[in-house]
C-alpha cells in the first residue's frame, strides 16, 4: 500500500549535515554584518518559521489523510461530501491571517531599508562593467576596482549603475543585492558592523563571464581605512630609476595596456580597471585570482583563456619584460 512520508525523506537532515561539515561560507546570506543585512535576516527568519509551521501542519494533514483513508477491503463506500461552507471560510481566513503577520513586518522592513543614509555617510558609486566592478568615492576622489574598502560602523550610501549591460551588486553579508542598470542610478544604504573581508559577486546574468564577476568588500577599522584612503589618494608609486620596476613601467607605457588602464602619470585608459594602486589589492581579475606573480603572468599573457569573453586581449609581453611589468604592478601599492 502506498505511504507518503515526505517528512521522513532524509533530505533535510542530510542537507543540514552537509552544511554543518562545510564552511566558512564567505558569501552566506545567513550571517549578516550590517544593519541592512540584519534587518533582512530578521525578517527572513520570522517568515521562515511561519513557513515551517504551515509546512508541518499542511503536510501533516496530507500524510494523515493519505494513510488513514487508504483503501482497505470491506471498508464502506465513502460519503459523497461536496463541500462545507464554514470550512471553506476558515481555510480562506487562516492563510490570510498568517499573511498579515508576514506582510506587516515586510512593509516595515521595506521602508526601514529604503531610507537614505545620513548626510555624513560615506558616499560610494558602484559601476558595473562586463565583467568587473568600478568603485568611486566622490568625496575622497578615489577610484578603484573590485575590492571595496569601507570603515566599520560608519553609514555608507551606495549609488549603483552600469556602464554596459545590467549587473547586480551583491555582497550578502552587508545586505541584499541591487541591480546595476545602465542609464539609472539606484541606491542602497547600510552600516557595516564588523571588521572582515566579505565576498560577493554579480547576481544578474550579464554575459559570458557572469560567473567571473566577483567582488570583495573589506570592512576596516577606522584607522586602517584612513591609511588606505591616504595610500589611494597618493599618486601612483614612481619606481626608482634603473630598477626592475622602472623597466616594467617603460614596457607598460609602450604597450597596448595604456589603451584601457589608468596609472596616474603613466596612462589614461578607462575601459579596464584602474591600476594606479593595483599592488595594494589582494586579488586580480574581479576577485578570481590571488594577486601574485604567477597569476599576474598568466593573466597578462592570456586573459581570455582565464575569463571567457574578457575584453583584455593577449598581451605580447614575455620573458624579462613580463617579469618587469609584474614587478612594477606589484609595486603600485
Amino acid at each position: 500500500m502506498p505511504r507518503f512520508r515526505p517528512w521522513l525523506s532524509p533530505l533535510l537532515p542530510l542537507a543540514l549535515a552537509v552544511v554543518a561539515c562545510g564552511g566558512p561560507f564567505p558569501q552566506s546570506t545567513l550571517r549578516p554584518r550590517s544593519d541592512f543585512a540584519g534587518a533582512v535576516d530578521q525578517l527572513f527568519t520570522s517568515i521562515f518559521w511561519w513557513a515551517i509551521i504551515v509546512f508541518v501542519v499542511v503536510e501533516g494533514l496530507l500524510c494523515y489523510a493519505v494513510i488513514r483513508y487508504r483503501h482497505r477491503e470491506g471498508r464502506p463506500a465513502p460519503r459523497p461530501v461536496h463541500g462545507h461552507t464554514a470550512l471553506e471560510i476558515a481555510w480562506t481566513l487562516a492563510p490570510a491571517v498568517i499573511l498579515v503577520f508576514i506582510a506587516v513586518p515586510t512593509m516595515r522592513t521595506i521602508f526601514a531599508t529604503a531610507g537614505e543614509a545620513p548626510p555624513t555617510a560615506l558616499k560610494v558609486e558602484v559601476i558595473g562593467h562586463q565583467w568587473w566592478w568600478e568603485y568611486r568615492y566622490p568625496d575622497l576622489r578615489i577610484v578603484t576596482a573590485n575590492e571595496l574598502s569601507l570603515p566599520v560602523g560608519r553609514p555608507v550610501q551606495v549609488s549603483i549603475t552600469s556602464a554596459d549591460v545590467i549587473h547586480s551588486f551583491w555582497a550578502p553579508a552587508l545586505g541584499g543585492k541591487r541591480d546595476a542598470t545602465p542609464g539609472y542610478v539606484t541606491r542602497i544604504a547600510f552600516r557595516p558592523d564588523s571588521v572582515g573581508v566579505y565576498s560577493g559577486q554579480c547576481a544578474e546574468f550579464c554575459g559570458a563571464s557572469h560567473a567571473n564577476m566577483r567582488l570583495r568588500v573589506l570592512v576596516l577599522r577606522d584607522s586602517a581605512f584612513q591609511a588606505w584612503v591616504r595610500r589611494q589618494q597618493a599618486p601612483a608609486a614612481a619606481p626608482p630609476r634603473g630598477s626592475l620596476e622602472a623597466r616594467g613601467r617603460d614596457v607598460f607605457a609602450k604597450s597596448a595596456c595604456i589603451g584601457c588602464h589608468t596609472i596616474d602619470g603613466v596612462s589614461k585608459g578607462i575601459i579596464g580597471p584602474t591600476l594606479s594602486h593595483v599592488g595594494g589589492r589582494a586579488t586580480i581579475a574581479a576577485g578570481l585570482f590571488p594577486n601574485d606573480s604567477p597569476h599576474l603572468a598568466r593573466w597578462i599573457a592570456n586573459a581570455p583563456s582565464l575569463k571567457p569573453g574578457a575584453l583584455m586581449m593577449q598581451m605580447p609581453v614575455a620573458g624579462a619584460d613580463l617579469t618587469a611589468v609584474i614587478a612594477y604592478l606589484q609595486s603600485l601599492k
Partner: protein
Amino acid sequence: MPEAGEHAHPTVGTYLRVAAILVILTVLEVGVFYVPAFHVVLVPTLLALSAVKFALVVLFYMHLRMDSRFFSFLFGGPFLLAVVVLVALLFLFFGHFTLRGAAGGGGAGG
C-alpha cells in the same frame, strides 16, 4: 439563415447617424487642438472625445450594444486589462514611486 437576424442589427439610418456624430466629434477634436483657449483642458477633452468615438464604433458598428453580452465580456475584459496595465506602467515609470535618482541623479532623497 446566418445567426442573428436582421432585428439584431441597427438600421442603415442608425449607421448614418452614428457616422455623422463621428465626423462631428473628429472635427471637434481637431478644432480643440487648434484653439489656444482649450489648451488648459486639451488632454482631458481629447481623451473624452476619443472615448466617445471609440464607444460609438464599438457599440453600433460592432453591434456590441445589441449583440450577446458575452461578446462584450470577451472584448471588454481584455480591453480593461490593457487599460489597467497601461495606467500601471505609466505610474511605474512616471509616478512618485518610480525609480529613485533616475539618470542624471535627479532624485536625491527620492
